[in-house]
């Protein structure tokens, strides 16, 4: 579909082209007022999260949602990480964090390598039926996960991968494949054909050209893919709930369990500290990667 509206070869940020602004006019003030108000709307929840996580429960019960804590405390953070309870387990978020680290560190490279080879083969080594397979894969990008989840559970159970770490890696590889393959296929197709011909003249085959020519060329697109996958897999909730099992429960699932645990008094400060901790990894990726992240979104527009 229109996944190619924003090709990666084009710079996303081109410089404004709107009407030229004059000096300070009411319209200019209006522009900034709108932008600043919008920015406040987007920043408010982050502010509330931070201040709530630094308050003690007595202060929270006073209801000053937006105020900076009168008495600063880091206990909620320590509790969220170390001793917060989900059901009977009171080990905080740290098991979930390490599970998410494991899942992400394994799933990101596996899904990217698979998609890279797909894109390379689809651009230079098409075979009978390869385009049809690709079409099916793109169709898969639009299929709601619920339509395939149950048969996939049964299939993974049959081969003994259900509720295991390799199982969840396989699941992330499957569902990352459509968009990543599209990404790499478009990238390789935009390379000059002479590169490929030169490799053929030198007698290199499928893997020779891949490792010696294409792999080194695809560093920029791979950065985009890594950002896309790292945030996507870290933030995943559905697959973690269904496929990871208790042993490999990712951080998002554990966070939700901690917050929605109904026993005892709800500790909003601990909940918000836990929420920030879960959001921290993708936020760091976002702020470090900057404009690459925007490209990833544009490229991953079908991922949803």
């Amino acid at each position, binding site marked *: *579909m229109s996944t*190619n*509206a924003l090709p990666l070869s084009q710079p996303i940020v081109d410089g*404004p*082209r*709107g009407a030229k602004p004059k000096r300070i006019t009411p319209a200019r003030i209006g522009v*900034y007022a*709108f932008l600043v108000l*919008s*920015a406040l*709307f*987007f920043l408010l929840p*982050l502010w509330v*999260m931070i201040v709530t996580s630094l308050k003690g429960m007595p202060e*929270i019960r006073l*209801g000053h*949602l937006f105020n900076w804590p009168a008495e600063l405390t880091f206990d909620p953070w320590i509790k969220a990480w170390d001793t917060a309870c989900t059901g009977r387990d009171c080990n905080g978020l740290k098991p979930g964090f390490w599970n998410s680290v494991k899942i992400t560190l394994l799933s990101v490279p596996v899904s990217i390598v*698979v998609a890279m*080879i*797909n894109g390379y083969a689809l651009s230079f*080594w098409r*075979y*009978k039926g390869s385009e049809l*397979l*690709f*079409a*099916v*894969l*793109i169709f*898969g990008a*639009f*299929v*709601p996960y*619920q*339509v*395939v*989840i*149950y048969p996939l559970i049964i299939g993974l159970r049959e081969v003994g991968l259900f509720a295991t770490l390799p199982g969840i890696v396989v699941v992330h590889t499957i569902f990352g494949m459509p968009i990543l*393959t599209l990404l790499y296929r478009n990238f390789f*197709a935009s390379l000059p*054909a002479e590169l490929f011909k030169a490799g053929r003249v030198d007698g290199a085959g499928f893997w020779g050209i891949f490792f010696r020519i294409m792999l080194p060329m695809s560093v920029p697109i791979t950065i985009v893919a890594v950002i896309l996958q790292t*945030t996507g897999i870290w*933030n995943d909730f559905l697959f973690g709930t*269904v496929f990871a099992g208790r042993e490999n429960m990712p951080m*998002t699932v554990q*966070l*939700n369990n901690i917050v929605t645990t109904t026993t005892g008094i709800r500790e*909003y400060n601990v909940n*918000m500290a836990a*929420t920030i901790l*879960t959001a921290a990894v*993708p*936020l760091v*990726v*976002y702020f470090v990667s900057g404009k690459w992240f*925007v490209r990833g*979104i*544009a490229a991953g*527009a079908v991922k*949803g």
Partner: protein
Amino acid sequence: MSQVAQGGGAAAVPASSAFPVRRRRKFNYQSVLGTLPMIITAIGVFVICIIFSVIWSFTNSKVFPNFNFVGLAQYQRLWTTDRWLISVQNVVIFGALSMVFGMVFGYLLAVFMDQRIKQEDLFRSIFLYPFAMSLVVTGLVWQWMFDPNLGIQAAVRQIGWTSFSLAPLVNKETALYGVVLGGLWNGVGVTMAIMLAGLRGVDAEIWKAAKVDGIPTWKTYLFIVLPMMRGAIATAFILQLTGVVRVFDIVIAMTQGGPGISTQVPAIYVIQHITDRANVGQGMAAATMMLLPVLLLIVVQGLLQWNAKRKQGRA
């Protein structure tokens, strides 16, 4: 679907079909071997799994799948179950509201960002950062903000506006709108980014021409530039649509489908029936229904392309 994919590919990468060297080769075994994961995924997951889902929707499978066919009984039950009817109604309302407001707010932000403003990168970062966070995080934050006793409502009342009311999640009538707001907060930045890229892709000559003709800026944005951004709009639209059909995480985190069943959505219905409710046949009937909008989208896309081709042929 193959038409769809090829159409998309050809639009962006004219090179791919132009090089004769890339003509389809005979069977290259290395290539087949290298794409084995793709072959297994495409056929095994996106064909066979879907077929199984559809087949099981015609059976009375409970905890485990079986092949005792019961015809359309599961569908009959599905469409007479309040929980499902409300789920469908909710996803339509949720979808319509988040898409309309998302598009309008996203385009407005993009237009305002396009006014040669200072600190553009800063504003962009602020509008986009929520998208980096998961929908679970988004849902939990807004659940806290909407807390009736300690959230925004309480904070505003304390300042003196005692009749102020903003706690949508505890009320059956308004809970869904609370979820819509959370979803918008998470995703509007992306729409803005796509729209802004679209705006900047519009030919600068258009702006000069509009200026020469004395057309006011706002009219140019609304009636000239907007229709030229079809690509960006379609991208944003499809991105939002797939998100809407799949909506799950944010509802679980914000309301868990409640109060009552007032914020149930189809995705939750399916998951609940294959897990807690142990009624696979019913879950698969619901899953099969979820496939319909996707098929509809493909048919519409196919018709549009067919129409475009026919027009081209006539010209």
